[in-house]
């Protein structure tokens, strides 16, 4: 897995880069994956906190590619959760109801928390089901 990621890094054309942040980001993801495997917990990277030149984000996302999971949820506007070609590396895109991006994250974890059913929501659902059956 790591070697695959490292091979992919070689394909990143340095000449095209402006901020040189793509390669360090990929390395950060590599370290995060290693941490995840060693049970040292998940990592979240906020893509909006980094200076990226036009096209660099696309380059990063293209390098990561698409994996087996593509989920979309609807909570305060749509959210897309995509597992990249590297299992454990997820791209989470939050939109508002106007489909404007309000958050872009790379999450390195088993499964992004947002995909799980939440305790509060389960409890509320149970109450509704019960009152419906009563």
């Amino acid at each position, binding site marked *: 897995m790591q070697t695959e990621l490292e091979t992919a890094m070689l394909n990143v054309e340095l000449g095209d880069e*402006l*901020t*040189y942040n793509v390669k360090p980001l990929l390395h950060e993801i590599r370290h995060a994956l290693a941490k995840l495997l060693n049970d040292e917990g998940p990592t*979240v*990277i*906020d893509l*909006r*906190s*980094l*200076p*990226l*030149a*036009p096209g*660099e984000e696309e380059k990063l996302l293209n390098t990561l590619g698409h994996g087996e999971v593509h989920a979309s*949820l609807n*909570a*305060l*506007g749509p*959210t897309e959760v995509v597992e990249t070609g590297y299992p454990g590396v997820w791209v*989470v895109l*939050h939109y*508002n*109801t*106007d489909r*404007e*991006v*309000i*958050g*872009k*994250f790379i999450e390195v974890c088993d499964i992004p*928390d*947002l995909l799980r059913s*939440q*305790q*509060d*929501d389960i409890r509320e659902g149970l109450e509704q089901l019960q009152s419906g059956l009563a």
Partner: protein
Amino acid sequence: MSKDETLGEALRRQGVTRRGFLKFCAATASMMALPPSMVPVIAAALESARRPSVIWLSFQECTGCTESLTRSHSPTVEGLIFDSISLDYHHTLQAASGSAAEAARETAMEENHGKYILVVDGSIPTDNPGYSTIAGISNRDMLEEAAKGAAAIVSVGTCAAFGGIPAAKPNPTGAVSVSDLVHDKPIINVPGCPPIPVVITGVLAHYLTFGTIPELDDLKRPKAYYGKSIHDRCYRRPFYDKGLFAETFDDEGARKGWCLYKLGCKGPTTYNACATVKWNEGTSFPIESGHPCLGCSEPGFWDGGSFYSAISTPTEDIPKAAVYAVGAGAAAGVALGAMNRAKKQKSVDAHEKVTIDDLDKEK
């Protein structure tokens, strides 16, 4: 939503699920420029946060700051932040007007004395109070009165923060910033013309979340957004380091996206989050669109010389001064030289040859 309700309760009542709330918290963390690892802390804090009362005063301004905020407003996360505060007075946005509006302001100030957040946009005229009044009250009086009961003041926009365009030379109204008049309250400056909307809401979110004001720089700007210069975070910075500059707006360098320093970019002296947070939902920022930074979030940006000449270049005609100096220098040099020659000639003339006889005489 009642004032005793916590934000968590209010959102839940509005049908926002826990999942939606977590998403809201993630976006809020991003907005506050906090690391994503802070999301659980933010979630816990926001859940139990109580909605603060906000009074918004607009003085000598163009409403651009309010526009900036509301353009990104309605159904967004920023909108939710706004739903979770109690905007008790904003004479541009509120439905009430005239004496009803002023009554709302006075009631809010009284009920929340010592607790409300005062947001100010626009500068305050100190010359003739008649230059800008609201309901017959001068801006200065209204600010000073509202500031007394405020927990903190947020100066939104360069006008409120530093005086801005109204204070630009020759400053006909004697315009000053909020911090020039109020000295005994915590002030957060959110400069920009206009400020990035997310920065305005981010500061409010920070207060809402932590009940404190964020860490500020020496110009009272939140470090999370104004801690780094545009230049330091600019994706065109490598071109500056390589010495590749656009010379005009349509030359090869401009097309290739080279550094705009020579076209007057104020990025090196401007502290703001444009290069990372960007504008229009993260689409781009001025430099990305090919225009130099104007430095709008810095004090006196309007008086800082041409927007289109580099920050280190002279503002006066230096070659002309140099030419005059050459002329004057030549004249002075010739005069001094002539004086030296005259002196030399005089000493030559005054020179008396000493002969053997003279030496003999001394014996």
